[in-house]
């Protein structure tokens, strides 16, 4: 993979996780447990899609094949998506939504903090801008983990169940893929090796404060970064892509 191709793929990797997570959150819009949480989760979804647009607009420019952000967002096949499996996990209940968000946000903040120093000015600028938003996300999701973990007996049980379910997907975020290694070496990508201990430290601190048990360390599921996903992604894409597929080559 030449540098340009690698950069393009890295931008997909940066954009796909927010896109799929943003999609999952957008499924909830209008169905939240309270108006306030509904608004907050929609807000996070909005922020994430805003970031996706930044990444994909830049990716389209890097690719230089005359494609648009929408071509990149809506016209790839499942195996061409680079998002982590965590983001595909369904909205089983509010605890799952919050747990998924907490893992992602905790990582996402560390990632963006690192990417601010990217040699690629565009990426650094996007990271800088996104970081403000993501700090709010992190606060929101970690506070809700505490609220549910240390709320009622039922909310504690549900939050723990959600963590147990999500835990196997929490490690992929900080597992360095060959592409990420290459980008790190070029000074463009973040160094996941550095992020990893901080990530686990923060996650553990949140769980501790929320009176939750850190799940036993089982095997971490992975594959998303190389395009091997869960069975959920196909269904996500059939909705996400429906209009662009059914009405090809049109302006909206």
């Amino acid at each position, binding site marked *: 993979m030449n540098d340009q191709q690698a950069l393009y793929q890295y931008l997909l990797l940066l954009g796909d996780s927010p896109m799929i997570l943003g*999609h999952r959150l*957008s*499924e909830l*819009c*209008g*169905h*939240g*447990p*309270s*108006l*306030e*949480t*509904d*608004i907050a989760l*929609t*807000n996070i*979804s*909005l922020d994430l*899609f*805003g970031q*996706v*647009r930044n990444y*994909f607009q830049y990716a389209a420019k890097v690719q230089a094949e005359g494609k648009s*952000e*929408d071509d990149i*967002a*809506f016209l790839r096949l499942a195996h061409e998506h680079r998002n982590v499996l965590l983001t595909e996990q369904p909205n089983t*209940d*509010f605890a799952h939504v919050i747990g998924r968000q907490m893992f992602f946000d905790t990582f996402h903040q560390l990632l963006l903090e690192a990417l601010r120093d990217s040699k690629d000015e565009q990426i650094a600028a996007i990271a800088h801008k996104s970081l403000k938003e993501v700090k709010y996300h992190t606060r929101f999701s970690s506070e809700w983990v*505490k*609220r*549910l973990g*240390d*709320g*009622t007996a*039922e*909310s504690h049980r*549900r939050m723990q169940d959600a963590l147990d379910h999500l835990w196997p997907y929490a490690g992929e975020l900080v597992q360095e893929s060959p592409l990420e290694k290459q980008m790190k070496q070029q000074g463009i990508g973040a160094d996941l090796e550095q992020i990893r201990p901080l990530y686990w430290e923060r996650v553990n601190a949140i769980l501790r404060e929320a009176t939750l048990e850190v799940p036993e360390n089982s095997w971490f599921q992975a594959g998303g970064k190389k395009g091997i996903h869960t069975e959920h992604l196909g269904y996500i894409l059939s*909705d*996400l892509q*429906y*209009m*662009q597929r059914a*009405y090809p080559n*049109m*302006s*909206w």
Partner: protein
Amino acid sequence: MSNSLENLEQSFQDRIDRGEKIEPKDWMPDRYRKTHIRQISQHAHSEIVGMLPEGNWITRAPSLRRKVALLAKVQDEAGHGLYLYSATETLGITRDELTEQLLAGKAKYSSIFNYPTLSWADIGAIGWLVDGAAIINQVMLTRTSFGPYARAMVRICKEESFHQRQGFEIMLTLCRGTEAQKQMAQYALDRWWWPCLMMFGPPDAESTHTEQSMKWKIKLKTNDELRQQMVDQTVPQAELLGLTIPDPHLKWNESRGHYDFGEIDWDEFWRVVKGNGPCNKERLEARRKAWEEGAWVREAALAYAEKEAERTAVSAAV
């Protein structure tokens, strides 16, 4: 006593007539309070239930730009709901009570949201027509007598106008697009036109409450006047889009200076109001589901807040 009540009522009405705003702490007749609880909460419920038909297309929006705009719009509606519930709460009722009324089927919401969104063009049509009709009502309500309601309307109108332009722009994009897109837009107009005209309520001849509402400035124009305004403002827009309004009787009336239009199917109107619209059950069911499945979350937040308060109290005492 009764004499003094009459006096109170008279001076209350005088204030309204002078164009003063009534504020929550002011004395007000019981009927004024009840009417406003009913109407403002109905308005709030409409914002919340109205999130559902549009929310139906968020995951399938055809471009990132449109997806973001739609998400933001539906979020605005949640914000409007929140704002209007707060305005209702100033009249001495809680948001939870209002929600229970909605879920029990005791409180109404705008019947328009009992129609399904069947294509992406429906998102355009709702913005253009439903928000268009809503604005006509709401602009009038910015001059209503109850302060919190009037102020809410000022703020909401601004955002709604933005939504309406956005909806029209979706339609415009479709109408300048391919044949399939234009057809999608036309079919959406076909389905939404008549329900939108029904949004202004029954014809004046059958409308109750009108006189009292006029006195309280909840209504400054009659249903039929507002409806005529809607028709008159929309016809040229449809022409600009190149779409055909599905009414063979629609015709400019030179002498009236208005468009004449065909008979509204009032049977359909009442059917939908009474619960037999295409989506009444789905809408309420979706709200009920969100409410019931969210109960443990709300309880947890409360329990946690109490613990936190205790912890703070304890640490303050130490």
